[in-house]
Structures are given as structure tokens and as C-alpha cells.
């Protein structure tokens, strides 16, 4: 693991008083390798190492720590700062019913996350309304209806073949009439480079004006995480991220990449297939996995 590798890199450092450009060179190289193995984007790693180097050089080596431990401490601190220290909850203030729109690539976990969020919000005393706005994928509407039934949350009666933007608009009106206060819109998976579908999402957003537009991203995503997040943020505008399938052994470097390139907070993580498997984001968990 990284601390073991850093110990080896710093074996020659015993007896030096300060961390210097030269003596941390090899240590930073180990950090870079660990981060790339953890799927952090190449360019994000470059920037991260540069900022760690800046913070580390000139530091006195503390008596209580080995140089390796000291560098890890700086790296860990920088990682936590970047990932976001405080849990940033959902912003549901403003016009009611509040609207949450979920977006992301095919298979990332949007439909499941929509139901998880509905269950979470119900537990917090809100009255959610699930909206199936994916009219493309076979049985997508059935999928959300089935999940809604499991948690006794009302699901909008989407007709196959309707337009996603119309569905969203009608659902918000229906929720208002039924005195439901939080509309959660599940959208079809789409490629960030599919202009027509990205444009559809933009239209939907301008019609329903969601308080939250959450990018649902798979924790095992590799280098392309930067590209994906960048496109969704630049073209649609996201307010936060849900990172799914985090209970596996994926190192989750995508979390750092997405955060670094968009600046948006990771709000929740999916940690299982069942509907209770949603947790507020805590940087420690992801930081430790990336460090390996």
C-alpha cells in the first residue's frame, strides 16, 4: 500500500530535518502512481501533486512522524479538502414543489438512486413524487413504478412515447395539485456527446427549473470521468453528484476527478442495490480508498 511504498521511498531520508524538493521527489512519484492506479485523471493527478509539493517543501519533519507519515498526512489533508469536508445536503428551498433532476451516463444507477432519494426524503418527513422520464429504455417506466411501490411513494403515470420535457412539466403540476413537495425526475441514460439528448435535458431543466440537478456517476469510472463531468456541467449545469456502486472494491478516483473539474459537491454515495443503500457523502471513506 501507499504508506509502505512511501516508507521505502523515504528510507534514505532518516536524519534530515526538512522535507525538500529533492528528498520528496521519489515519495511524490509513489503518490502519483497510487492515484493513477486509483483511476484519478492524469491531469488532475498532475495538479494535485503540484499542490502537495508546494505544501510539503520546507516543512520541518515532526518528531512524532516519519517523513513518509508526514507526506501522507499532507496528501490526506489535501485530498479531504478537495473532496469537500462538510456534508452538503439537498437544497430544496425556493419554489415548491422542489424539483430534483437526475442525469448521467447509461447504467450509472439513476433509476435506483431516484428511488433511494425518495425513500431518504420520505424518512425526513417530505412527500416525494417519482417521475419516470425515460421513455427510451425498455421497461424503464416499469422499473421506477416497481421501486416506487416497494417504498410506497407515488409514481407519475408516464405514458410510453410521451415527450420527456412534457412528462416533467405535467408531473410538477400534478405534484403541486396532490400536495407532494419534492419531485424527483429520473431521466434516460445518455452520452455526454449526444447533442440531441443533451439538448433535451437542457430543455427539461429550463421548463421545470430544478433546485438540484444531480450527476449520477459510477464509482468505477476511469479517466473519462473528467470528460463526462465537464460536459454535463458545462452544458446542463449540475448542482451536485451522486457516486454509485461504492461498496465494491473500486478505488473511486473518479470522485476526485469529478470534484476537481466541476467544483460541485458529491452529496450522496450509493452503497448497494437495495433502496436503503444511500449515504450522505463523507470524504474520509473515499480518501482512504484513493490512497489505498
Amino acid at each position, binding site marked *: 500500500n501507499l504508506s509502505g511504498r512511501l516508507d521505502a521511498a523515504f528510507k534514505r531520508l532518516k536524519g534530515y530535518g526538512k522535507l525538500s524538493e529533492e528528498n520528496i521527489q521519489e515519495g511524490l512519484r509513489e503518490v502519483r*502512481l497510487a492515484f*493513477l*492506479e*486509483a*483511476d484519478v*485523471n*492524469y491531469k488532475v493527478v498532475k495538479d494535485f501533486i503540484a499542490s502537495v509539493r508546494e505544501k510539503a517543501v520546507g516543512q520541518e519533519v515532526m518528531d512524532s512522524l516519519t517523513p513518509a507519515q508526514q507526506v501522507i498526512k499532507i496528501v490526506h489533508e489535501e485530498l479531504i479538502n478537495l473532496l469537500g469536508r462538510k456534508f452538503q445536503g439537498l437544497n430544496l428551498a425556493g419554489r415548491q414543489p422542489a424539483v430534483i433532476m437526475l442525469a448521467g*451516463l*447509461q*447504467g*450509472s*444507477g439513476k433509476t435506483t438512486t431516484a428511488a433511494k432519494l425518495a425513500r431518504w426524503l420520505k424518512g425526513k418527513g417530505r412527500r416525494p413524487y417519482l417521475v419516470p422520464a425515460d421513455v*427510451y*429504455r*425498455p*421497461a*424503464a417506466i*416499469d*422499473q*421506477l*413504478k*416497481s*421501486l416506487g411501490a*416497494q417504498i410506497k411513494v407515488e409514481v407519475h403515470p408516464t405514458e410510453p412515447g410521451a415527450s420527456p420535457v412534457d412528462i416533467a412539466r405535467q408531473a410538477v403540476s400534478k405534484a403541486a395539485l396532490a400536495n407532494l413537495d419534492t419531485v424527483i425526475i429520473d431521466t434516460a441514460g445518455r*452520452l*455526454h*456527446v449526444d447533442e440531441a439528448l443533451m439538448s433535451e435535458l437542457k430543455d427539461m431543466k429550463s421548463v421545470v427549473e430544478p433546485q438540484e440537478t444531480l450527476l449520477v456517476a*459510477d464509482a*468505477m*469510472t*476511469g*479517466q*473519462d470521468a473528467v*470528460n*463526462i463531468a465537464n460536459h454535463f456541467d458545462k452544458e446542463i449545469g449540475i448542482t451536485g453528484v451522486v457516486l454509485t*456502486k461504492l*461498496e*465494491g*472494491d*473500486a*478505488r473511486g*478516483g*473518479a470522485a476526485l476527478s469529478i470534484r476537481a473539474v466541476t467544483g460541485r459537491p458529491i452529496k450522496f454515495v450509493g452503497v448497494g*442495490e437495495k433502496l436503503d443503500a444511500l449515504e450522505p457523502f463523507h470524504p474520509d471513506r473515499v480518501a482512504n480508498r484513493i490512497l489505498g
Partner: protein
Amino acid sequence: LLGRRTIDPELLDELEEILIMADMGVETVQNIFEQIRSDVRRNELKDPKALRQRLKECLLERLSIQPPDMDFRQKPFVILVVGVNGVGKTTTIAKLAHNLKKQGKSVLLVAADTFRAAAVEQLEAWGRRIGAPVIKHGMNADPSAVAYDGMEAAVKRNVDVVIVDTAGRLHTKVNLMEELKKIRRVLGKKIPGAPHEVLLILDATTGQNAISQARLFNEAARITSIALTKLDGTAKGGIAASITSEMKIPIRYIGIGEGMEDLRPFDPAEFVEALFS
């Protein structure tokens, strides 16, 4: 890159960056560049063009594992499809079934994902579109029981090919991998030699975790080939190189879209070209 006239450290760094950003993984890239750098030191590469050519050869070497043709004289030919959640198993099955039907084969689908909401409905919808019947039980049924019924139906109906869809599962979940082992055993009980093909579905946007997926699925189910999906996105799928070179498992297909026609045979040369485009 082609504008450079000499091989210098910057060029090597740039090429390394391209491969790492393609998800090829640090270890695989380092191994390839060890070869490249020694060729450079021995003056075997005259210019950037030769270097790039040599690099492509190294990659082709790793990717060119030719899968044997599926032997359809085995009747029914049984294909078991596995992989983690959301990678495209069900959709790839629909594409594959459609392809086989176009070749004049009769195909039966088995809905052995009894866990996920509307998984059976999804496969049934595809079955209607492509004209393949679907064997199913109710939700939360034992997937092995559905698999067994699927084998019985395949024999009874004298179909050419039967494709078994399974639930997405993380390779780290021991109980789910045990369930998969059981499904595999049950197929073989009813039809000796089944499954004749165990197809692992990998998502091209996945990073290094794909290696862990391939290893553990192989341990549990003995993977015979791989389909790499979602290559119509911007991810390059470089994990393919690490997996084929380390585990010697061939890639049969690539998925390039969500429609039933969006399946192609894997072409290593095309794949290598795309890495640098």
C-alpha cells in the same frame, strides 16, 4: 505528435499520457514503455513515426487473442452472460440474439435476473422486438431454477442457441458469486458441456477496477470471452489491453450503441488506431 522530428523524452511522456488517459493502467503502460525505451536505446527506432508504429505493434501483440468460433454443432449452444451492475448485459444479449436470428438460428432467452425491478420485463420487451421467446419465473425466484427450466425448454423446443441473462453483481460479493457458480453448475447438469460460452460484459468507461472484475468473475464462472460495451462514448476502453495480456481471455464483441444492431466483432487493429485518434 507526427510533427516532431526526433524521439525525445517529451514525446515518450506524451505517448504515455495518451495511453494512461485511455485507461491502460500504469503497470501495462510501464511494461510497454520498457520495451519501447530499450528499442530507442539500441537505436532501433529512427524517428517518431517508427516509434509510433512500434508502439502499435506492442499493443496489437497484447490484444490479438483470437477467440475460437462458437461451435454451433452443439445443440443447444448455451451462452451464460455475466458482469457487474449496469454494464449492458441485457442489452448485449438482445443484440447478440438479433444477430444470431439474422444468421437463421433459433434463439431462446432465459430471464435469470430474478432480483432487479423490471429485469424480466426488460428482457421480455427485447424478446418481443427481436422475435425470441423468454423463459421466466416470478420475481425473487431462485435464478438456478429459472436457468434449469431454460435448459429444459431449450431441449424441448430444439433451439439452436439459448442465452442466459443474470443479475448484475459486484464481484466482491461472495454470496452473489456463489450464486453464479451454482447457476453455472445447474446449466451443466441439464445439458452436458453447458455453458459453452461464458461471456463477461465490461463497460468501456470503467477504469482499473475492470481487472478485478475480470479476475473474480473468471474464478467464479470461467469466462471464455468478453464483450466491451459503450465504446460509442469517449472512453477508449484501454482496460482491454491489460485484461487480454494478463488473463489471455479474448474479446469477442464491442457494443457501440443502445440499438439491437449496435454490436460489432472486436477488431484489435481498429481498436489500436482508435486509441491514438
